[in-house]
């Protein structure tokens, strides 16, 4: 029977399948960070269990880490205790850890691909919903809760039910200044924040095939914002080229064997999807969110919507609540919304390509004097590469702050937070109430919209800068 890519990867990892029970799925790589793991390690200790495969487990510090003064102990005692717990647990259970200051440290979803630990056809889990990022390589990668983290640590497996299959086909060519972020924001606006619940999304079509690995990761990253279990893209030469030569990529004869297998990882002709979504890339323009969930977005040329015009009662109530929280008036052109802070970073848009795109717009210009811009590379590796390319200088010369690697203002667990009422344009993935700091207001944008917005102090499309 013809199979989808996701079904092939799933089937290749079934350890045990019995009717009336979930399948037992083998996990090839388990990524761990400080926030969702302490209770899992406690559970192991309490039951006298060990980590079954420390060699398939990798830990890093990302959510809590400060992005300034990273070589001093963390000032916040609660954050420090959580990071210390991870260090103790990694040492006790024999797990590799990339701590603050380490060459390999960074956001968990940035370092997996960077090290070549993320490869096509694998199953990858992490106690973090944006694990879907790794699907860009054709891996089946999904977020899990802390009880499941404990289960994977103990057994290297997870009980799973077969997910449903959704295809999102994006054909056509993107206009200049329109990016992967705009594609995924448009998809989520179309299907809703839980529209893909129970499904794995396969992104396909000529516009997806034309994307770099960084851009593919941006798209797969936000699959969870549409409620999907995972998002993936068939691995191709672009993926192989990205991986070749990375520290943990196969070498020599192993490389050839791997590529041969990886090349079989595509959806068969005639495979059936339970749901299909189609989008025309050439019709897309830069997208921004106006509300408090990632599905509340519009092309930047539009105006703040009027809830009174919404037919569905639930949608109307949600829009009213969102606009009240965001402090926005229906009918206001989105490009007239002024922001206090621009955040460039996160596992969605904190990779080298994202920094390059933003730096290209900022080079030789100054950001708006009333706006602050935080640039937070996704990993120490990204930071070093950006510095080698002189991007840090471009940011600093333009008036932005160049920081250390971590999650930072994506969720404000470290000191990088919005103040109540402050408004940001953020390249991260969630505009939930208070996500970037208590009372903070978030507009999700692409890296180029972030840079253009920093220059003008209000939501701005890069195309509107030309000649400015």
């Amino acid at each position: 029977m013809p199979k989808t890519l996701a079904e092939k990867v799933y089937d290749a990892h079934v350890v045990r399948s019995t009717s009336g029970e979930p399948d037992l799925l083998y996990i090839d790589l388990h990524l761990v960070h400080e926030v969702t793991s302490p209770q899992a390690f406690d559970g192991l200790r309490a039951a006298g269990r060990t980590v079954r495969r420390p060699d398939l487990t990798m830990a890093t510090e990302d959510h809590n880490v400060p992005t300034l003064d990273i070589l001093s102990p963390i000032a916040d005692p609660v954050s420090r205790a959580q990071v210390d717990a991870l260090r103790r647990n990694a040492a006790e259970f024999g797990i590799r850890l990339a701590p603050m200051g380490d060459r390999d440290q960074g956001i968990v979803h940035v370092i997996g691909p960077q090290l070549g630990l993320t490869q096509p056809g694998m199953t990858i889990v992490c106690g973090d919903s944006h694990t879907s990022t790794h699907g860009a390589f054709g891996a089946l990668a999904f977020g899990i809760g802390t009880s499941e983290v404990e289960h994977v640590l103990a057994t290297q497996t997870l009980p799973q039910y077969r997910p449903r299959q959704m295809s999102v086909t994006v054909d056509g060519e993107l206009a200049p200044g329109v990016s992967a972020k705009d594609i995924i924001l448009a998809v989520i606006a179309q299907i809703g924040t839980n529209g893909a619940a129970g499904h794995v999304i396969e992104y396909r079509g000529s516009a997806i095939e034309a994307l770099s690995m960084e851009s593919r990761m941006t798209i797969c990253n936000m699959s969870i914002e549409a409620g999907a279990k995972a998002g993936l893209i068939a691995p191709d030469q672009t993926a192989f080229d990205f991986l070749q030569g990375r520290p943990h990529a196969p070498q020599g004869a192993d490389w050839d064997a791997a590529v041969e297998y990886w090349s079989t990882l595509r959806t068969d002709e005639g495979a059936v999807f339970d749901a299909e979504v189609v989008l025309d890339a050439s019709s897309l323009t830069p997208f921004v969110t106006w509300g408090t969930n990632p599905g509340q977005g519009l092309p930047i040329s539009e105006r703040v919507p009027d809830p009174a015009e919404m037919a569905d009662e639930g949608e109307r109530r949600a829009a009213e609540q969102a606009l009240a929280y965001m402090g926005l008036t229906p009918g206001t052109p989105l490009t007239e919304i002024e922001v206090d802070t621009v955040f460039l970073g996160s596992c969605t848009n904190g990779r080298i390509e994202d920094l390059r795109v933003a730096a290209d717009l900022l080079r030789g210009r100054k950001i708006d004097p009333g706006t602050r811009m935080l640039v937070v590379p996704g990993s120490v590796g990204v930071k070093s590469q950006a510095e080698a390319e002189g991007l840090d200088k471009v940011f600093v010369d333009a008036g932005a702050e160049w920081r250390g690697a971590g999650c930072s203002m994506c969720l404000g667990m470290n000191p990088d937070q919005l103040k109540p009422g402050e408004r940001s344009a953020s390249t991260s993935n969630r505009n939930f109430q208070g996500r970037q700091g208590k009372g903070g207001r978030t507009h999700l944008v692409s890296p180029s919209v972030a840079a253009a917005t920093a220059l003008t102090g209000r939501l701005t499309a890069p195309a509107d800068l030309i000649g400015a």
Partner: protein
Amino acid sequence: MDAFTTHTGTVAPLRRSAVDTDQIIPAEYLKRITRTGFEDGLFVAWRTNEPDFVLNKPEFADASILVAGPDFGTGSSREHAVWALLDGGFRVVISSRFADIFKNNSTKAGLLTVVLPQAEVEALWAAAEADPTTQVTVDLQAKQITYSPGGGQSTTVPFDADDYTRWRLLEGLDDVGLTERHLADVEAYEARRPAWLPKALPAIPA
């Protein structure tokens, strides 16, 4: 995990859709390394900023069944959201649609999530708002909810629960222990894995 068989309590009607886990418990409360004590973070922004938020009303303060709009628990994978609800006194959450990870996490921690059609959700909202002392019984064994709207005739609403998850919840069984019974299958699988698959250890210099 505590077993769940049947529960009787009152309802808190949460008339909101797409309640994300950042609202259930914000990130700053996730820094703790314990598994309990998260009640102070439960819906803290709404409890602080909105005087008429449902859980601020004394008549709903003791509710143990949360009835919410569609798409409850979207966003972050934080199981802390489930723990915070349990710590806050809830044993059941009812919605027409849950986010996958939230639903999965609840089954691991002993919080029952029940999917009902939106019309049944609305009926429960109306009953609780009309009389906050309305007692609602959620019976996992029989897969049904029973209550008497307006103190009148009792109504019974059936719900679906997959047999395996139901059995685990009824017995309060720990997944790890169940999987360990199949260790031989895991070992056989490991023996078949291609040798070129990556290992995090030893670390390879970049």
